């Protein structure tokens, strides 16, 4: 019989599968598969054309091999060829292969699209369905481009078969998901909405899925769907269970469609139309009522389907959040489920209650279930359910029950699954802070947290506790005492050592009066943990030690001894070594006053959003937590004052390497560049102590702020003293011709000691780099005491510029590194060449430069006495020619000059009108370039 012989052919596939299954080892399996792959490959490549049946068989084999986890890198072309077969079975297997194995960016897509196009226009519903399936399953952008216009037409065409409509709706949904921009809204949208009225419930279900997604993005376009959905839902809910025949699933009428419709309604606020709203409320009540009716079947499928609808209805009630009676009924219903014997229902009830807890109307009702939820936490065997219980406890927590909930969570933490510990830790930390009435409870809770689950306490959590302790002085003493006691445990977690080190370093003095926690005991206690800790913690402890030196002078010797030991001073870790060296030095050199300034108690942290909360949000994804937080915020309007949502961000650097931050040194370090005259003050000494170490370290010489004290003096003159402090004087002599200049810089050593490692360089920053070339000849690396060193700078102006170059000087004086930065007075006006001209010329040019952006005018008050001769000298010094007898008013000054740059020359006319009565000047500048006018005006107006 032919059927049998061909049946043998299919047996080829079966035999292959059996072979694979009989393979004793992975190697044997791979060997068998490779053999088969080679076989198929040769068959595909062979001269003999394969019939459709064999192709089908081989494609099936490939699919099986793929399922086992082997890459299939051929056969795609054969599959594409199958698509154009006239035989259904061949087409079908071709589409299957492509849906499973072709990814969206395959280069075969164009061929596939061609086949799909043919099938879509075939008017054979089976072929059309196959094609639509393929589009929906692959869903690539090329497919969207090719079919985004076609699929909606099929969907709303009057003569399309129901099964094709269903497929078309979901296909369009898929295309809209992958490439929303390619799916144009159009006249078909209204007709899609009307599919909600379709006779065929399968079509309605598919259309509802589509509308849900579309409505989320374009709510206004699909507003009309609300009334239709309510009507449809109402018909389903009130129908007898036999009305819908095939769509009745275990005695529940069309559960999937009901769920979808309820989801769709969740895209919108409660209907405004009273009639529709009433009808919807009726539906929801009916659904709630049905839950109380005795089940029509004992099968789990019946209750599943019924409850799927019920939970969705409850979600809608919560979403609307407007009908208190419904909300409370929903809450009671969920309360029943909390003790249901079906684990799934307990899980879902806990999940739904979480959202219910955020509603104002039902928050209290949810709270009544606290005992049940706590019990669930203790007795549930399923970690998924326990997780939901934790979530719900977190959501229902408020001031009234915070202590109970936090205590329960803490005790659960001891046995909790490892996978959810970190999340619980975060939640406990947040609740403890948010609802803390007294902060001693807060401190206890966090320390417990570290004790129970130290490994899961993230940095955010312990930063936060320190921040709160520092910001609240009423809890500092208690915190010091508690951490001191906690540290006495023989084995304590490293996080506790961190918290302990920090808090004792800051507030150890508050408990030092007690002989049981005297400074030395505190120090010994901390130091006993030192060697067990990681590098960041050790670094933190070293900082705590230097703080101890300040707090307790009596242990200074002991601590210096520790710092001086080789294990510190020569520690292999750079950070530790540096801290030890610096702190030791600081403790030796600085006076107690300076120590007290440097090691002052940390100032309060700025208030920010809690970083713990941010972390929890990250962990949980955007949805759940933030919603609860947002909703709850109003109800608990900052019960604990501002600390509520502040953060530990500032603190986040503590463990990195920024010892400056830890010590609050930030403000002091900036001073060193311009030490005040006279004997060293506390600040400069302090800096000296620090600058001894490497300049790259955190405490090394920071880059100095740029001094520009004398800068403006040089606008109108070329020689003079640019900078002076108690060590060094910098003098200048300069000459400029056209666009070139030469500057002689004189560095005078005012002390009797040699400056070592002297270097001076000029830096042009940002845009200036292209506008100005400054070449500094290298200077000698030493300047003897009392001697002067000369350095020559060659300057070239490339184009007009605004900023000034900076002269950076570094040298070592008496072992300390000095950093000085001075703005070099190279200004645009230096490149002036004065131009003499007659009155007629002047006004002719003046008129030529009358475009609004070419003129810059400034009216300003005189800063110096308005002496005519001085003014004249300044204008000449500025670089222009002073033109007499040009201006009809003899008290006005008029000047002209040309700015020379390498690229262009810019002519410039200026006029200065003094008003001696008002003590004001008016300065007007006209040049052919607006940026030049502006800059020159700024420079010159500053001089009078």
């Amino acid at each position, binding site marked *: 019989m*032919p*059927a049998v012989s*061909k*049946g043998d052919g*299919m047996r080829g596939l079966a035999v292959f*599968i059996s072979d694979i*299954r009989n393979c004793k080892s992975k190697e044997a399996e791979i060997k068998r598969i490779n053999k088969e792959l080679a076989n198929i490959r040769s068959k595909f490549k062979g001269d003999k054309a394969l019939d459709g049946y064999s192709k089908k068989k081989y494609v*099936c084999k490939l*699919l*099986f091999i*793929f*399922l*086992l*986890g082997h890459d299939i890198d051929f056969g795609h072309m054969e599959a594409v060829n199958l698509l154009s077969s006239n035989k*259904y*079975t061949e087409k*079908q*297997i071709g589409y*299957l292969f492509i849906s*499973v194995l072709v*990814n*969206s960016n395959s280069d075969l897509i164009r061929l596939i699209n061609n086949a799909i196009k043919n099938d879509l226009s075939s008017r054979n519903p*089976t072929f059309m369905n196959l094609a639509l*399936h393929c*589009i*929906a399953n692959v*869903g690539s952008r090329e497919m969207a481009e090719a079919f985004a216009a076609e699929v909606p037409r099929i969907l709303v065409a009057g003569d399309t078969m129901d099964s094709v409509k*269903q*497929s078309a709706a*979901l*296909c369009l*949904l*898929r295309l809209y998901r992958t490439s929303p921009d390619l799916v144009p809204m159009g006249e078909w949208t209204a007709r899609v909405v009307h599919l909600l009225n379709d006779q065929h*419930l*399968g079509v309605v*279900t*598919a259309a509802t*899925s589509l509308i*849900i997604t579309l409505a989320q993005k374009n709510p206004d376009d699909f507003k009309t769907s609300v009334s239709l959905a309510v009507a449809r839902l109402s018909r389903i809910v009130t129908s007898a269970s036999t009305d819908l025949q*095939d*769509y009745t699933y275990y005695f529940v009428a069309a*559960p*999937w469609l009901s769920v979808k419709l309820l*989801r769709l309604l969740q895209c919108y606020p409660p209907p405004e139309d009273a009639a529709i709203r009433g009808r919807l409320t009726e539906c929801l009540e009916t659904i709630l009522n049905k839950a109380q009716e005795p089940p029509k079947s004992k099968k789990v*499928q019946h209750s*599943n*389907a019924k409850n*799927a609808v019920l939970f969705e209805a409850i979600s809608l009630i919560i979403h609307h959040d407007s009908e208190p009676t419904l909300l409370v009924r929903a809450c009671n219903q969920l309360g029943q489920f909390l003790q249901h014997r079906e*684990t*799934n229902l*307990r*899980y*879902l009830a806990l999940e739904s209650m979480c959202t219910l807890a955020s509603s104002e109307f039902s928050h209290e009702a949810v709270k009544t279930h606290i005992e049940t939820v706590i019990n669930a936490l203790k007795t549930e*065997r*399923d970690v*998924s*359910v326990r997780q939901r219980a934790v979530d719900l406890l977190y959501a229902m927590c408020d001031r009234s029950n915070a202590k109970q909930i936090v205590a329960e969570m803490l005790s659960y933490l001891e046995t909790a699954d490892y996978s959810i510990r970190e999340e619980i830790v975060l939640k406990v930390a947040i609740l403890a802070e948010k609802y803390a009435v007294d902060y001693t409870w807060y401190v206890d809770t966090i320390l417990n947290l570290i004790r129970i689950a130290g490994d899961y306490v993230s940095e955010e959590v312990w930063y936060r506790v320190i921040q709160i302790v520092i910001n609240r002085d009423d809890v500092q003493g208690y915190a010091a005492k508690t951490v001191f006691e906690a540290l006495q445990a023989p084995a304590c977690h490293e996080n506790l050592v961190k918290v302990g080190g920090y808090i004792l370093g800051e507030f150890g003095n508050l408990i030092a009066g007690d002989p049981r926690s005297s400074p030395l005991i505190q120090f010994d206690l901390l130091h006993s943990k030192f060697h067990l800790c990681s590098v960041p913690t050790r670094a933190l402890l070293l900082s705590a030690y230097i703080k101890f030196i300040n707090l307790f002078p009596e242990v200074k010797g002991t601590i210096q001894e520790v710092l001086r030991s080789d294990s510190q001073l020569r520690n292999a870790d750079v950070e530790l070594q540096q801290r030890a060296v610096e702190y030791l030095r600081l403790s030796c050199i600085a006076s107690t006053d300076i120590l007290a300034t440097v090691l002052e108690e940390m100032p309060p942290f700025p208030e920010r959003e809690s970083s713990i909360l941010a972390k929890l949000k990250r962990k*949980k*994804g955007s*949805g759940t937590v933030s919603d609860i937080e947002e909703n709850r915020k109003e109800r608990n309007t900052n019960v604990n004052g501002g600390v509520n949502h502040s953060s530990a961000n500032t603190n986040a650097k503590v463990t990195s390497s920024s010892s400056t931050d830890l010590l609050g040194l930030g403000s002091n370090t900036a001073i060193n560049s311009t030490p005040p005259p006279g004997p060293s003050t506390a600040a400069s000494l302090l800096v000296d102590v620090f600058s001894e170490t490497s300049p790259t370290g955190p405490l090394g010489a920071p880059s100095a702020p740029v001094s520009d004290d004398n800068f403006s003096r040089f606008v109108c003159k070329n020689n003079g003293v640019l900078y002076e402090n108690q060590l060094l004087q910098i003098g200048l002599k300069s000459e400029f011709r056209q666009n070139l200049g030469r500057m002689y810089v004189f560095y005078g050593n005012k002390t009797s000691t040699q400056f070592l490692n002297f270097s001076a360089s000029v830096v042009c920053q940002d845009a200036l780099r292209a506008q100005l070339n400054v070449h500094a000849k290298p200077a000698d690396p030493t300047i003897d005491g009392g001697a002067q060193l000369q350095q020559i700078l060659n300057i070239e102006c490339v184009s007009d510029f605004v900023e000034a170059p900076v002269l950076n000087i570094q040298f070592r004086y008496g072992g300390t590194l000095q950093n000085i930065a001075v703005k070099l007075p190279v200004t645009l006006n230096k490149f002036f060449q004065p131009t003499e001209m007659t009155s007629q010329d002047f006004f002719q040019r003046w008129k030529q430069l009358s475009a609004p952006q070419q003129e810059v005018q400034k009216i300003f008050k005189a800063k110096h006495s308005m002496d005519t001769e001085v003014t004249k000298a300044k204008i000449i010094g500025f670089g222009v020619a002073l033109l007499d007898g040009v201006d009809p008013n003899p008290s006005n000054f008029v000047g002209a000059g040309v700015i020379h740059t390498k690229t262009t020359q810019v002519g410039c006319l200026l006029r200065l009108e003094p008003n001696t009565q008002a003590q004001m000047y008016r300065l007007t500048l006209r040049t052919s370039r607006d940026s030049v006018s502006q800059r020159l005006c700024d420079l010159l107006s500053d001089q009078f």
Partner: protein
Amino acid sequence: MIKAILIFNNHGKPRLIRFYQYFAEDMQQQIIRETFHLVSKRDDNVCNFLEGGSLIGGSDYKLIYRHYATLYFVFCVDSSESELGILDLIQVFVETLDKCFENVCELDLIFHMDKVHYILQEVVMGGMVLETNMNEIVAQVELQNRMEKSESTVWVFFPFFCLFVCLLQGGLSAAPARAVSAVKNMNLPEIPRNINIGDINIKVPSLSPF
């Protein structure tokens, strides 16, 4: 949206995989392994929902699964799907398989992979629920069979090789997971429990002095 449908047996051997979002082949295999690892360690009487699949989509995604005899049916879905709805969908799928294969068992899935795919395609399309009415699905599958028969009398649809006794009596659909857990446990080797390493006292025999 359904991101993936995975069917594998009690040993983690995949029997059907269907991804509605693109993942590279090796990633697909990793997801299967991870999912199996997560699902297989759960008892049969815990809930059917599970979070924590890290590979497939993060916190918005849930695994919803059912365990039938030797097979796990796992749907990986996002939050836009109703959990119980998906559970029912799995049930519909399995009941449909059962009708089409007459007492479906693991071997049917192995030897008629293409058929299983076609049936699934009638239920889920592009990650969305296409049809939930079992009669409609079965009617579509029968239509396909007729078309096949008309093209050739080749296809032996009813399980030809499935000579083995199905592990289930009365069909999978009627028996939820619990009823077959005994069977499932039989397949597992005895695992020693409670290995207590906290209290091991190694007694060193005292050596007699030389």
